[in-house]
């Protein structure tokens, strides 16, 4: 187990090193001078030169790369051009909202996807199964921002069940804040429940044919016990994988959803950074979000052993 863990963590560092390199390259493929792009048309040559010096863009490219990697390793993500604060601080200030939003939307996606996936597998080939598959495909075809706008229009504006946008006043309680996240979490979770549903269905179909399931039925156990205890436990690994994958996808999906609902989270920070060409923020956010993405994948792999005692590393 320890050897496996060490190998996986070493592998993660290799991927993160490559991720950092890709981030570095992306920020340097900007046509023309990034400093000039960031400062806008009104900037003087002196302003641009000063920014170039501040960002180290006047150094030779290999040196820039080494400096960049050194900064990344020491956790220094640089300073935002427009927010006048370190990128790490800007990200940390907005992390809470994005964390809760992701958590809520994963919960919604799991709450829809897993039970319906199980039912669909148990009732394989019936009209219920066909209908569920159709609905899952429909859900997967929904653009989350469009679902968000539709929810705002009907549930917030017309029925007034939920707040239209934002994260509540500065002194809002946690409960109030979470209420602001209900619609965004549905908009984000609903389209992504489809993936969980389909994986749950496939994983359950695989195990429902196994001998031990037949044995359990032969012993006279009820359908519920057979499905939930004997089958589901063994289908957990693929389900766990897809839940982890969905969590990672949803963090990125939050970028769009936060914009729709005017939520001041990490996603919103990224979009405004892109619109203002605040490259240090874009770089930092890319590194942090992809780092979390890689970490979630690692965590899922390690959870396998918990879900299935047969797995030994």
């Amino acid at each position, binding site marked *: 187990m320890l050897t496996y863990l060490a190998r996986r963590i070493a592998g993660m560092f290799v991927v993160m090193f*490559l991720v950092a390199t890709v981030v570095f390259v992306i920020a340097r493929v900007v046509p023309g001078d990034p400093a000039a792009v960031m400062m806008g048309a009104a900037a003087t040559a002196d302003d641009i030169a000063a920014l170039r010096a501040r960002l180290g863009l006047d150094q030779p490219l290999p040196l820039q790369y080494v400096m960049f990697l050194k900064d990344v390793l020491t956790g220094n993500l640089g300073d935002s051009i427009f927010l006048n604060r370190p990128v790490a601080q800007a990200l940390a200030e907005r992390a809470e909202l994005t964390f809760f939003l992701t958590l809520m939307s994963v919960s919604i996606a799991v709450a829809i996807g897993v039970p319906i996936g199980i039912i669909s597998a148990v009732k394989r080939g019936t009209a219920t199964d066909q209908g569920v598959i159709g609905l899952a495909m429909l859900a997967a075809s929904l653009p989350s921002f469009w679902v968000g706008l539709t929810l705002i229009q009907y549930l917030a504006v017309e029925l007034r069940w939920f707040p239209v946008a934002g994260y509540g006043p500065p002194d809002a309680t946690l409960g109030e804040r979470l209420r602001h996240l209900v619609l965004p979490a549905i908009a984000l979770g609903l389209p992504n429940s489809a993936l969980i549903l389909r994986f749950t269905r496939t994983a359950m179909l695989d195990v429902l044919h196994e001998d031990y399931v037949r044995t359990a039925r032969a012993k006279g156990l009820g359908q519920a016990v057979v499905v939930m205890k004997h089958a589901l436990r063994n289908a957990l690994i693929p389900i766990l994988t897809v839940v982890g994958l969905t969590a990672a996808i949803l963090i990125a999906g939050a970028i769009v959803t936060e914009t729709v609902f005017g939520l001041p989270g990490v996603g919103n920070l990224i979009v405004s950074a892109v619109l203002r060409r605040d490259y240090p923020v874009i770089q930092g956010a890319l590194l942090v979000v992809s780092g979390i993405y890689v970490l979630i994948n690692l965590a899922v792999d390690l959870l396998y052993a918990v879900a299935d005692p047969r797995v030994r590393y």
Partner: protein
Amino acid sequence: MMKSPTGLLIRRMFRRRLVLIAAVVLLAIIAVAVAAPWLAPYAPNKMDIINRLKGPAGNHWFGTDEFGRDVLSRVMHGAQLSLAVGGMVVVVACILGTLTGVIAGYAKRLDGPVMRLIDALMAFPDILLAIALMAALGPSLFNTVLALGVVYTPRVARVVRAATLVLRELQFVEAATALGARHARIIAIHILPNLVSPLIVQATFIFAYAILTEAALSFLGVGVPPTSPTWGNMIAGAQQYMRQADWLMLAPGGAIVLTVLALQIVGDGLRDALDPKLQKVL
């Protein structure tokens, strides 16, 4: 009469009625997109300020927007752009992905480095990588295609690499090698043609994802410039008038959902028809 491999494939694919319906819907959408200049009742940018923000009615089936432009005509013309972007993304991703995938699968020594790079690209969530690339390249139609093409390259590369690894060991490749065929010839004549079926399936799904992601990019204001009426741009524009005119949002959104849904069903059907064994794996 349906004895050719293509005929068999088509028959197997359309055995499920849903796939047939989806294929017909998809063809209809493509036909509408191509014929939009002739089919659309109005010019997409024709303004009629007196009739602005009018709800769906006999002369404007999907209503009019804030400038009195006919929403139906704009959705039809938007189909042209949205489908064109999706199609071009598929071409870019398939070319880049096949190139890297074949190199990784065929040349053992390059497999490690190339696949690590692909892993690194896959460590970014799709939309985030697309946004970052658009931030670097600047918003334009061409850059949107390029950025999304790069984003979806790893998917193609992985599938192509896996298929190439299998093909490389097969007897006909061994025979060609024994006959003294050069690598370029083996790849062109023996490997590439056998990659077509997995590629077609991937292409259909990438087409669907590309339409969704392009719409999201345009909605955020970092994709195709707002002057071009893609479906994403239409929804972004409708946001402001949502309370007075919800039809502005429903029509382009419905068009996206219908197209993506049809593509996914056709993709599923193709996958099942081309390789029933893959059904559970992918």
